[in-house]
């Protein structure tokens, strides 16, 4: 099993979710996060006092899937979340040791 972690632009969430659902992904976890990469944040000005926030709001999408599905999940997210501009985000893929469905006790791919 793999855990695919994608940092995406917030307004791309719906497209990513629809594309992954079409692929057969049954669930995901979404968190509001802040960070920076090449995109350097925004400047706010209040009565002339400038505050440049170097952290940009993003969404972190986590998808657990079977190992053989992972490459297509990555490809799908990469395409759905793409705008071509800096700040589109990153995708990380981690090995996943175990999964358990709390309600039934099912494990691993049966629990996904």
């Amino acid at each position: 099993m793999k855990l695919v972690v994608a940092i995406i632009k917030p307004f791309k969430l719906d497209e990513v979710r629809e594309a992954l659902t079409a692929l057969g992904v049954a669930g995901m976890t979404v968190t509001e996060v802040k960070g920076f990469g090449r995109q350097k944040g925004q400047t706010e000005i209040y009565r002339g006092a400038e505050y440049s926030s170097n952290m940009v709001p993003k969404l972190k999408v986590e998808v657990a899937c079977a190992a053989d599905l992972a490459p297509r999940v990555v490809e799908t997210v990469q395409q759905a979340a793409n705008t071509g501009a800096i700040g589109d985000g990153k995708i990380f893929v981690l090995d996943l040791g175990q999964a358990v469905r709390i309600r039934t006790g099912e494990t691993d791919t049966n629990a996904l």
Partner: protein
Amino acid sequence: MFKLSRTVGAAALAALAALPAFAQEAALQAPATAPTATVDKGDTAWMMTATILVLLMILPGLALFYGGLTRAKNMLSTMTQIGAAAALAMLIWVMYGYSLAFGPDVSSAALSNVVASLDKAFLAGITAASQSATFTAGVEIPEYVFVSFQMTFAAITVALVLGSVVERMKFSATMAFAAVWLTIVYFPIAHMVWASSGLFFKAGALDFAGGTVVHINAGVSALVASLMLGKRMGYPHTPMPPHSLTLTGVGTGLLWVGWFGFNAGSALEANGSAGLAMINTFVATAAGGLAWMLVERARGHKGSALGFCSGIIAGLVAVTPAAGNSGPFGAIVLGGVASAVCFFAVSVLKPRLGYDDSLDAFGIHGVGGMVGAIGTGIVYAPALGGPGAADYDMGAKLLVQVAAVAATIVWAAIGTAVAIAVAKALTGLRVAPEVEQEGLDLGEHGERAYN
């Protein structure tokens, strides 16, 4: 608003332009004892309404305007300091403030230039039948209404001062400061500008609704208080953005609405002079709000919501002394110019000088008040659409305006230094660093604004 602008109202009516000031002063001096003049129910109803509108400016108007500009951890502290200082001012006003400002003259002619006697302390001698003069001979309003109307001015002025010291001054210190400051700064200046025996009034200074008494006075006092108190921890390197410009926007709207009571109410009657003050309070303010955003654009920034709100306040401040002393188009120019000048005061001057006037009480009320007070001497001219008489001498009037502004600055600065020193001796003035760090809401009041 009191007697100063009486000349204005009279001048507006051409036939009354030459009305001798002394006759009116005599009427104002003896308001209660032999009420032969008429009390009009329309005037009375309007003045009671105007009084409540000024209260609306304080709570919730100013409290939300200022509160939204602070950080979330100091929201309740800011609102409570404003409300409590205003409440204290109301009590002090009826105890001795009204008498010191508008009571019978003291026997010493020199002293009566700056303060009245304590003969009306605790509202001695005032009953429901007592009357106060207006700007029209033979027309009076109930004295209790006049006392209440003027009470709200004292209350909002002391609350305005606190805008420069929020987020770090002890609640107890704000109370001690308010009591001393009202006594040695506000009551004398109100007397000097608005009472017939007052120094600036006799000199002919124009101040329709309190540009000098309220705004320059509060702004300069705020600057001195913030300098004595010191900067907030981390200022200016730590970001301190406003926590809710939504609430600041709501407060701005309430202030604008309430300001009609402040300005149009200062006519003391429901008449044409009040109508002039009303339209000026619309258009000068509109010009101020837009001018600030235009200056932001010209400086290469985005036109901002806070800029719009700040410009509205700057326009309101500037039109306060001019409300009944200007034509509508003079007021538009005044509001726009004041807004642009205030922009530079808060965005350029303040960072360059490095003082921490937290909510820009000086930058907007002090600076805008000075532009308004001096500008009133210009827009009063009949050639510019103002209500001045045909032989209006602008140069001479400007000298009077500048002198009144300068004297107010000096008086307010010295008085504030004394009031802050007293507050420091009594309370320690400033909260402990830990309290400042975790916020005054928890540290001073044991509550959070948001849960």
